[in-house]
């Protein structure tokens, strides 16, 4: 995929990918690339010991990413609202026992996906295997056509973002999770594997399929 040809987790890859690593989570504006992770560590420690301000800061930092992920996973704002609430509740209750074996960001996404899966299981339209998209492919394609046909709507960038959202709906849940966690949230393969409970090799395969589908879909959107 153009502009993203080097996977930093691939054997022999260099640090050439400018978006790799979780050293600079969004919501921080520090110039020191090592600082945000270090601050996460402090906030986690303080929040685990009952510091509510630290917890608020932690969630203000990671909340937008969690919500972005949940909304696109569930395609329903009400469900995303509920899930992010449950995720934060689980985080507040779980922080005293959090031992830092993974980054707090990864841990939060594990909690978020756990909540999202509970919602997906409740939806009757979801196949038991979870291997098929949760939306009708024809509906999503129609949505894409609508976006393309809107000549005087929003700007190109707004349309592009909407087209990407629509193309994500075509992906099965695991592919969608992997694509968002890698390309948008910039988690490493090993971290994504932890979130979706699989291996880094499986993540790589899922990501390739997701990238191919999105590239094809956005090509059609043009």
């Amino acid at each position: 995929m153009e502009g993203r040809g080097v996977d930093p987790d691939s054997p022999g890859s260099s640090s050439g990918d400018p978006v790799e690593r979780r050293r600079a989570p969004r919501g921080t504006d520090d110039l020191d690339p090592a600082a945000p992770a270090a601050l996460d560590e402090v906030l986690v420690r303080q929040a685990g010991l009952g510091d509510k301000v630290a917890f608020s800061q932690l969630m203000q930092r990671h909340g937008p990413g969690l919500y972005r992920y949940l909304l696109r996973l569930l395609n329903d704002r009400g469900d995303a609202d509920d899930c992010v609430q449950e995720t934060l509740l689980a985080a507040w209750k779980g922080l005293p026992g959090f031992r830092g074996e993974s980054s707090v960001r990864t841990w939060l996404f594990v909690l978020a996906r756990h909540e999202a899966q509970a919602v997906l299981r409740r939806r009757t339209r979801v196949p038991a295997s979870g291997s098929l998209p949760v939306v009708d492919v024809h509906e999503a394609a129609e949505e894409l056509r609508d976006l393309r046909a809107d000549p005087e709507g929003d700007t190109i960038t707004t349309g592009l973002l909407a087209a990407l959202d629509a193309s994500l709906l075509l992906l099965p849940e695991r592919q969608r999770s992997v694509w968002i966690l890698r390309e948008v949230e910039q988690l490493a393969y090993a971290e994504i594997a932890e979130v979706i409970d699989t291996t880094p090799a499986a993540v790589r395969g899922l990501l390739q399929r997701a990238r191919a589908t999105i590239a094809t879909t956005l090509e059609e959107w043009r």
Partner: protein
Amino acid sequence: MTEDSTPATGRPRARPTGAAAVAEATLLLRQHTDAGWTAIESTVIERALAAFRPSAPVRGRHDLGDFFLASDVVVARLREAVDGARGGAAQRITCTTGEDDRLETVTVQLVAAYGPPLLELSERVHAVALATLQTLLGELAPPAEGVLVHVHIGDVSDDPRIVS
């Protein structure tokens, strides 16, 4: 792929090419904060913080008699006090209660800053922890020997944002 040759009609620019569209859309999404999050942010954080964290009761005593505090509250107050002592930060605080929910021991595990003498830090933290417990629990606060301060050096840091 070629650029869209349609004359611009009020649009800021042409549609990006295929691969560029994916890259640009990805970047847009990465920088995007959903309005839904902005709308609920303060509410969901407040609700989470209002949730009950199960914790053991700790007995205290004041002039009017005995009362109970959640050990979570004791830990939170101790953290505030310990973090206020320069040169160290609380990493883990554990309380052990005995008969009648009386606090028997408190263990404060610290992260220490590089440089300052550790013995002085330990004594300072011990003193503030003891004072805090006496304020919180009155005469049922554990004796000085019941407050254990473990200076744990897990990392060396001169970053004031980690340990001040």
